[in-house]
C-alpha cells in the first residue's frame, strides 16, 4: 500500500482531459446500469412506462385531432361562399358587367354568374322541388352571382366587409353570407387548442409525479445501498445519478410507447376515415403524428421522467443518512 500523501499527490496530477474521460466513463456506466436495473424488474418498470406512455399519448392524440380538424376547416374555409342576388328585372348585359367587375377584384378568387334559368334548373334537380316549380308560371328567380373570396376561414371579418361593400352596389338586392358558423368553428378550434394545452400541462405534471413516485420506491428499495455509499463518502450527486438516469429511462420508454400508440392509432383510423371522406366526396387524408408530436413525446418523455426523478430524489435522498 502506498503512503497516503503519495496517493493524494497522484490524485492532484490528473489532467482535465483524463478527468473528463473518467467522468463520462462513470456516467455511461450509471446510464447502462440504471437501464439494467429497470430490465431486472420488468413488470414494475413496464407499469410505470405504460402509465407515462398513456399520459403522453393522450395530449398527443388530442393534438392530432386538432391538426386534422384544422386541415378539414382549411378545405371548408376555401369553400366559403357569398351569394349575390341582383334586383329583379336586371338585364343580362347588366348582370354580365357586374359579374366581370366582381371577378376582377383582388379579394375574389372566382365568381360564377347564374342566370334565372340556370337557377331554376338547379332547383329542379333537388328532389321534391320539381313539381312545385312546374306549378309556377314565371321564373321568380333573379340573376345571381356566387363568389368565393380569396381569403378563407381565417378572416371572417374580411368576408363580412366584402359583403357589406357589395350590398352598397346598384342592382344588388341581397348578399347572403353566413360567417357566423365560420366564427363558431374558429372559436371551437381555439377552445380545443386551449383544452389540449391544459390537458398537456396536467398530464405532464402527472408524468412527473408517476416517474417521481417510481423513483421513490426505487430509493426505498435501495436504502441500504444508499446508506453505505454515503458512509464511504459518496457525494449527493453520485448517489443521485443512477436515479436520475432511471427517470430518464422511464420517460424515454413512455415517450416511445406514446409515439408508437399515436402511429398505430392514426394508421388504423386512416383507412376508415378515407372511406368516409370519399363517401362525402372529399379528398381528405388523415395526418399522422407531426414533428411537434414527435418532439413532445420523444424528448418531452425523457425530460419529464428526469424531472420527476430529480424532484423525488432531492426530497427522499436527503432523508437517508447513514446511522451505523
Amino acid at each position, binding site marked *: 500500500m*502506498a503512503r497516503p500523501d503519495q496517493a493524494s499527490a497522484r*490524485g492532484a496530477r490528473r489532467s482535465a482531459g483524463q478527468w473528463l474521460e473518467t467522468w463520462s466513463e462513470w456516467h455511461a*456506466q450509471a446510464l447502462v446500469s440504471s437501464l439494467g436495473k429497470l430490465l431486472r424488474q420488468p413488470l414494475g418498470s413496464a407499469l410505470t412506462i405504460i402509465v407515462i406512455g398513456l399520459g403522453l399519448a393522450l395530449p398527443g392524440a388530442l393534438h392530432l385531432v386538432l391538426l386534422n380538424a384544422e386541415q378539414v376547416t382549411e378545405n371548408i374555409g376555401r369553400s366559403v361562399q357569398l351569394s349575390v342576388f341582383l334586383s329583379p328585372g336586371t338585364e343580362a348585359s347588366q348582370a354580365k358587367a357586374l359579374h366581370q367587375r366582381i371577378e376582377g377584384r383582388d379579394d375574389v378568387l372566382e365568381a360564377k354568374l347564374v342566370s334565372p334559368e340556370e337557377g331554376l334548373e338547379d332547383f329542379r334537380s333537388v328532389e321534391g322541388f320539381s313539381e312545385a316549380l312546374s306549378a309556377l308560371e314565371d321564373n321568380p328567380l333573379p340573376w345571381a352571382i356566387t363568389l368565393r373570396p380569396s381569403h378563407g376561414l381565417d378572416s371572417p371579418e374580411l368576408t363580412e366587409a366584402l359583403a357589406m361593400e357589395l350590398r352598397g352596389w346598384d342592382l344588388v338586392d341581397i348578399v347572403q353570407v353566413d360567417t357566423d358558423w365560420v366564427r363558431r368553428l374558429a372559436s371551437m378550434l381555439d377552445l380545443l387548442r386551449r383544452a389540449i394545452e391544459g390537458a398537456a400541462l396536467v398530464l405532464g405534471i402527472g408524468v412527473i409525479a408517476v416517474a417521481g413516485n417510481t423513483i421513490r420506491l426505487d430509493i426505498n428499495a435501495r436504502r441500504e445501498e444508499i446508506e*453505505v455509499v*454515503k458512509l464511504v*463518502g459518496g457525494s449527493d450527486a453520485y448517489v443521485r445519478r443512477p436515479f436520475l438516469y432511471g427517470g430518464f429511462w422511464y420517460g424515454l420508454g413512455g415517450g416511445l410507447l406514446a409515439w408508437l400508440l399515436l402511429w398505430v392509432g392514426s394508421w388504423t383510423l386512416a383507412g376508415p376515415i378515407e372511406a368516409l371522406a370519399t363517401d362525402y366526396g372529399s379528398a381528405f387524408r388523415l395526418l399522422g403524428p407531426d414533428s411537434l408530436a414527435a418532439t413532445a413525446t420523444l424528448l418531452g418523455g425523457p425530460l419529464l421522467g428526469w424531472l420527476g426523478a430529480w424532484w423525488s430524489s432531492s426530497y427522499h435522498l436527503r432523508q437517508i443518512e447513514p446511522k451505523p
Partner: protein
Amino acid sequence: MIVFEAVHKRYPGGREALTDVSFELDRGEMAFLTGHSGAGKSTILKLVALLERPSRGRVVVNGTDVSTVRSRGVPAFRRQVGMVFQDHKLLSDRPVFDNVALPLAISGIARRDLDKRVRAALDQVGLLGREQGFPQELSAGEQQRVGIARAIIARPPVLIADEPTGNLDPDLAMEVMTLFRRLNEVGVTVLVATHDIHLIDRLGTRRIHVENGRMAEEDGDGTP
C-alpha cells in the same frame, strides 16, 4: 491527525454521550478505543467520520476542523476516513469486486486503474482471487476483511474501526487486528474501538479508555 479538544456530545433527548473528551492521535499513530458498551466509543468514531457533530469543543481530523465542514463538504471529508464496521456493511447484491471498488467509483477513478487497485487491496487482506464471489458466500472473517479492503482501497490517511472483531472468534479477531497493525506500519493513522481487552493486551498498542462518556486513564504502552 485526530485531535479532540474538550468535546461534548449531547444527543437530542438530552443524553450526554461524551463529556469533556480530549485526546490527540499523531500522524501514523495507532490506538485502541476501549470501554464498556455505551461508554461513548462509537460516538467518538462518529465524530471522526462526521456522522455526528460535536455539541461543544473542537474535533480536528487530518488538519480539518469539522466545524468548518458544511454539509456539502461532508462526502469529500469522509473520503479521507476509511471506516470498518462490526457488521461490515457490504452490499449483498454485488460481488466482492464491486464492494471493494465502491470508494474508487465514488471518487471517479478511471476504470482501467480499478482492477489493479482492487486486486492490490484484496491481496493486502489475503483475499486475492475472491473478486467474483458474493459476500454471503464468504465466512464472517472474510467478510470483515472485504470491509477492510474497501476501507483502505482509496488510501485514506485515517482508518477507523468500530468493534471490527465483535463477531469473530479469537483467531480471526487476532488476524484482523494484526492487519490493522500492518496498515498502521505503512503510515495510516488507525483508531479501533473494541471491548476485547484480552486481545489488545497481547498487541501492546496505545489505548484510549472512555467510561460513561469521559476520558479515563490512558496507557501509553498497552499494559494495564
